[in-house]
């Protein structure tokens, strides 16, 4: 039997440790804690051989020429938060030329509480540590460093294949829900096994459908969490879009999947999904893979009824994505009670001056720490409310 003191101690640890998934959605008074990066260390990451950087409080602008290593710094921060690159790159491509692996470390402050994060990649795989203790699973590091980003690649989130938009949802949800990360792991396992059973010769139908139950359970859970996230992102989106464009448009987000028209609740979704798998069995067998599920779903983005994925100018797509990223910052804040760090890559070349002038205040009102990059000649237009660090050839001058 544990005594009460002990229990209250680890309760406090848990709450303070920013363990996002166990936290219910919280409402705070006028004051909200914020996430802030205090220091960052890079070893053999992209062009950086070794970097030790202390970040001052407040906004930080990294100024430097092209290929100076600005985006890589933001990428390192994002990697520590999500264990993935925002550039859609393979892990081994992040290793500095000639090295065997890379290491990233950061100290983050959530109010006064400090967390130290470390992530290392070797050809064998990735390992993570929190406060000096090695995590049994890589996923334990997710959600410790809340971040949100807008980068040049984000245009592909709107225009690209559905996988890009699923990845967007995966990375957002991965930061707030361990249950999501776990369900995704189960889904992957079940799909691999079910697909192997589909390709077995001779085919044993019951050996395929045996996976339907665990697969549907994971799928229902994922769809439920994705829907909830999409609804929450969609709610403030039109207003944010108006804020950054100074015009009124209807920006809509919808989760797209074969069962979405039914709008079934999570409990019924599992049964409906089993039924769907049963109906599609012949198709799955011919293709040798499971053709429906969260691994095939999509996120629909519409502006005034037009599908942004196909029919929109790049400008509109980019603006919609900025609005979505701001909504994401709100979402992370709502779900965890902490305001995230925002990474803004080369905004001056992505957006026109007028829009930039509207986006920056919208961002500053939402996050405490904004890390942005810019070419030296653009810095003046950003009216940086903090520190400008110049960066060149993988070195930072403070």
């Amino acid at each position: 039997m544990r005594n009460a003191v002990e229990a209250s101690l680890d309760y406090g640890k848990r709450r303070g440790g920013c363990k996002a998934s166990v936290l219910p959605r919280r409402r705070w008074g006028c004051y909200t804690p914020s996430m802030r990066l205090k220091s960052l260390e890079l070893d053999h990451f992209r062009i950086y051989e070794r970097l030790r950087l202390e970040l001052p409080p407040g906004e930080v602008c990294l100024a430097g020429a092209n290929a100076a290593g600005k985006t890589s710094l933001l990428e390192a921060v994002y990697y520590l938060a999500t264990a993935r690159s925002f550039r859609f790159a393979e892990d081994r491509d992040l290793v500095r030329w000639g090295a065997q692996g890379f290491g990233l470390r950061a100290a983050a402050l959530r109010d006064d509480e400090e967390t130290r994060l470390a992530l290392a990649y070797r050809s064998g795989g990735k390992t993570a540590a929190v406060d000096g203790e090695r995590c049994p699973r890589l996923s334990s590091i997710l959600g410790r460093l809340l971040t949100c980003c807008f980068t040049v690649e984000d245009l592909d989130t709107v225009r690209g294949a559905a996988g890009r938009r699923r990845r967007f949802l995966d990375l957002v949800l991965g930061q707030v829900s361990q249950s999501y990360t776990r369900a995704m792991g189960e889904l992957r396992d079940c799909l691999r096994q079910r697909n192997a059973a589909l390709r077995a010769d001779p085919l044993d139908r019951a050996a395929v459908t045996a996976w339907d139950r665990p697969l549907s359970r994971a799928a229902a859970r994922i769809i439920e969490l994705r829907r909830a996230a999409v609804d929450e992102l969609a709610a403030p989106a039109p207003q944010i879009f108006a804020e950054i464009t100074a015009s009124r448009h209807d920006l809509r987000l919808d989760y797209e999947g074969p069962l979405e028209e039914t709008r079934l609740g999570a409990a019924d979704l599992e049964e409906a999904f089993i039924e769907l798998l049963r109906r599609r069995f012949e198709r799955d067998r011919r293709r040798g893979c499971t053709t429906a599920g969260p691994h095939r779903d999509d996120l629909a983005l519409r502006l005034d009824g037009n599908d942004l994925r196909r029919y929109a100018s790049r400008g509109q797509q980019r603006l919609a994505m900025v609005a979505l990223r701001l909504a994401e910052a709100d979402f992370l804040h709502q779900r965890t009670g902490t305001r995230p760090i925002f990474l803004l890559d080369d905004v001056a070349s992505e957006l026109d001056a007028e829009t930039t002038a509207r986006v920056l205040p919208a961002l500053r009102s939402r996050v405490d720490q904004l890390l942005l990059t810019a070419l030296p000649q653009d810095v003046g237009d950003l009216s940086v409310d903090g520190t400008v660090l110049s960066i060149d050839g993988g070195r930072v001058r403070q």
Partner: protein
Amino acid sequence: MVPSLKRLLAALRRLPGVGAKSAQRIGYHLLRAEKSESYELARSIVNLAERVALCSICGNIAETTADENRRPVCEICSDPERDEERLLIVEEPYNVESFERTGVFNGRYHVLGGLFDPLAGIGAEELGLDKLRRRIAEAAYNEIILATSPTAAGEATAAYLRELLEPLNVRLTRIAVGLSAGADVDYADEVSLRLAVEGRREMH
């Protein structure tokens, strides 16, 4: 290194949980130890290989007899005192030991020897499910308890067994999932909590 030692270390390293360092430690220990220790170890390994086989009825481990014509039967299957009406299906022989330690079950067992794993080529045939079906069809069980773990592979195997055994018109049950005993509701993960609520039962 002398060839005999090299050969031993190579054999040791094939054992689960034994890496190069452990193999070396065991090897050098045996070199220094009394010869009788090595003989006893070698004899018990050979004895295990020769005398222990899988039970021809349930797939549990069984000690064989000198009579080569008799098929191996485990202690539980040869115990006339056990309840003939209930059958509990588990993954591995050590699961039988776990259930036995609880003392809550006094029926018969069936050991699958694994779970569905299509990627590794393990399916109904490799798990001997046809034999299991025949065993149940020929006996008069009142209840079959599916006690595979509530993992994806365990659930898939249970789902397959349900399809397979349903036509036999026998009562099928699945072990409960949810909170573990002594668990604090506040610390439970969402999935376990949800299963615990779904699997709630009347208080008596």
